[in-house]
């Protein structure tokens, strides 16, 4: 069972990655999700995929995973912002090749779960979540930009 960092804690998880055909216990791909008559509750987004259908049914989802095939591919950051801005409140999980030094930005964009290989990597990654205590921009973690907090 893979472990992951969820809401700052190391936890076990039973969801399995997408497979060719939608199967119980596996995340759906976006196209499986679109085609399914009964909407799955967990879906994994790949960079470049259109997610209009996913955005329409956010209430019925409990898990959205976003894959980072390469850590330099920053498209996942925008997916996360968009999902949260449209009101998604369930688990938003980063999977794939992202690195620990991106955790702080990822969590600011709305990710609350991070799947990484190895218990020690997860333990070390925890520290990176808190690299900064202050930020200029409004983001998902801090809905007010600094220029408003300064004024208040």
């Amino acid at each position, binding site marked *: 069972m893979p472990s992951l960092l969820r809401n700052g804690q190391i936890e076990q998880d039973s969801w399995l990655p997408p497979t060719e055909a939608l199967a119980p216990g596996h995340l759906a791909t976006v196209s499986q999700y679109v085609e399914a008559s009964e909407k799955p509750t967990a879906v994994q987004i790949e960079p470049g995929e259109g997610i209009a259908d996913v955005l329409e049914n956010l209430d019925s989802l409990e898990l959205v995973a976003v894959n980072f095939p390469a850590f*330099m591919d920053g498209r996942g950051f*925008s997916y996360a*912002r968009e999902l949260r*801005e449209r009101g998604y409140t369930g688990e938003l999980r980063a999977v794939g090749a992202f690195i620990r030094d991106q955790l702080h*930005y990822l969590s600011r964009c709305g990710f609350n779960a991070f799947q990484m290989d190895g218990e020690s990597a997860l333990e070390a990654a925890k520290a990176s979540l808190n*690299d900064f205590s202050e930020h200029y921009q*409004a*983001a998902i973690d801090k809905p007010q930009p600094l220029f*408003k907090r300064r004024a208040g």
Partner: protein
Amino acid sequence: MYVYDQYDQAIVDQRVEQFRDQTRRYLAGELTEEQFLPLRLQNGLYVQRLAPMLRIAVPYGLLNTRQARMLAKVSRDYDKGYLHVSTRQNFQLNWPELADVPDILADLASVEMHAIQTSGNCIRNTTTDQFAGVAADELEDPRPYCELIRQWSTLHPEFAFLPRKFKIAVCATAEDRAAIHAHDIGLELVRNDAGEVGFKVLAGGGLGRTPVIGSVVCEWLEKKHLLTYLEAILRVYNQHGRRDNKYKARIKILVKAMGVDAFREAVEAEWAPIKDGANTLTGEAIAHAQSFFTTPEYTSYTDSVETLTNQSANDPIFANWVKRNTCEHRVPGYRAVTISLKPTGIAPGDITAEQLEAIADLADRFSFGELRTTHQQNIVLADVPSSELYTLWQALQKQGLATANIGYLTDMICCPGGDFCSLANAKSIPVAEAIQARFDDLDYLYDLGPIELNISGCMNACGHHHIGHIGILGVDKKGQEFYQVCLGGSQSKDASIGKILGPSFGREDMPDVVGKVLDTYVELRTEEETFLDTYQRVGIDPFKERVYAKPAA
């Protein structure tokens, strides 16, 4: 100028500690080369041909004398005692040790400086007019908006891993001195029909391999929407910009591929849900930013101009320097001074620690303790009383900083090129030096009039060769260094991309080639025409014929 509060300081300090840990993990083998690469780049650290290069941010080119002195100190403590002013108004150290960089950044943080996002695939240092705030032709001071953009873009969580680098420039004058047409996003402060000041927004400009002039995506944007609109553009780019080919990854390629109308629609669609959202600027936020860029306490001089006239009459060399290197100020009795970092024999933009300290002392005495870097790689003291120019000039002479060539051929823009940069196809500094050495007769230069000569060592175009009146580009031909020449580029209001003259040349031919181009101009010009005017009238052919003419047998 902008002064940090506890928030800004905390962010910069925490950034230093973050990078210290990243460097430690890299040196301990816990971070791979590939993983460390974007992390160090986003802290301004390149690994160059001979040593690392550290690029230190000077937000929109403005710094105080405390910062200038710290830069000088850092260059002495950790480097070879000199610095380089880049075409993005930043300072570069050419020889720091990787392991020292966290300490350098900590020293810089103590004077409110950093190297955040001076490199990498993220939003870079926002640039503006070097005469912002003092220009007579300015609609409004652009620097408060640059500062708002700086804060918004600094450590922006969503846009740190873009397809490619992203550059924003802001201007507020009809004569665009910030080259906004050559930026990923260009912003111009303009009035709408109702007389209100807002932003004209351009996107998709850029140099590099495929030079493109930016397209207008919004004719007039209300100020309060500045950040949300930028966010929408960046989001379209982050999601749809190409990531498969780094030469096609800039936003200009996306805007071209989509067409500007479709691009605008996509931006509007992204913008609709975030418009009026949390990042919408408040009047208070704008006023707060503006409060840092107030008018200094100018003295009203009654005899200032007269003193200058007398001094000029007595000393023609001084008079010439005043004519070439100073310009009009919106306050009578003051002038803005450009200190040339282009004397013959020095790499354009290089400055020693001692010279920088001397300029800092002069800025304290004569220019309210502030100085500015320019994208032409010079330094500006923006607020000098006319009556003090003579003393200032004498002090600059002692430092070898009184070259009177601003705007002329030898005031050229030149990237570090093959001497330092690992991406280079060819060296650029020796070409600059050879041209400077050939054309060092100032009277000849003045007779030629204003000419911008720009040199880049490769397609990345850091020397902006496409928008020089004369552009020189280093190219590689079967492992040999050659140089391609283009003519007729322009970075001002009527921005244009230069045309390639023809087959490239060897390095030793370059002064001759430039000489023939200049001769052609001198022969064909009418009395009133500048180089660019003549070029625009006669086209490239006469230049081509002259340069490629077979020598008479």
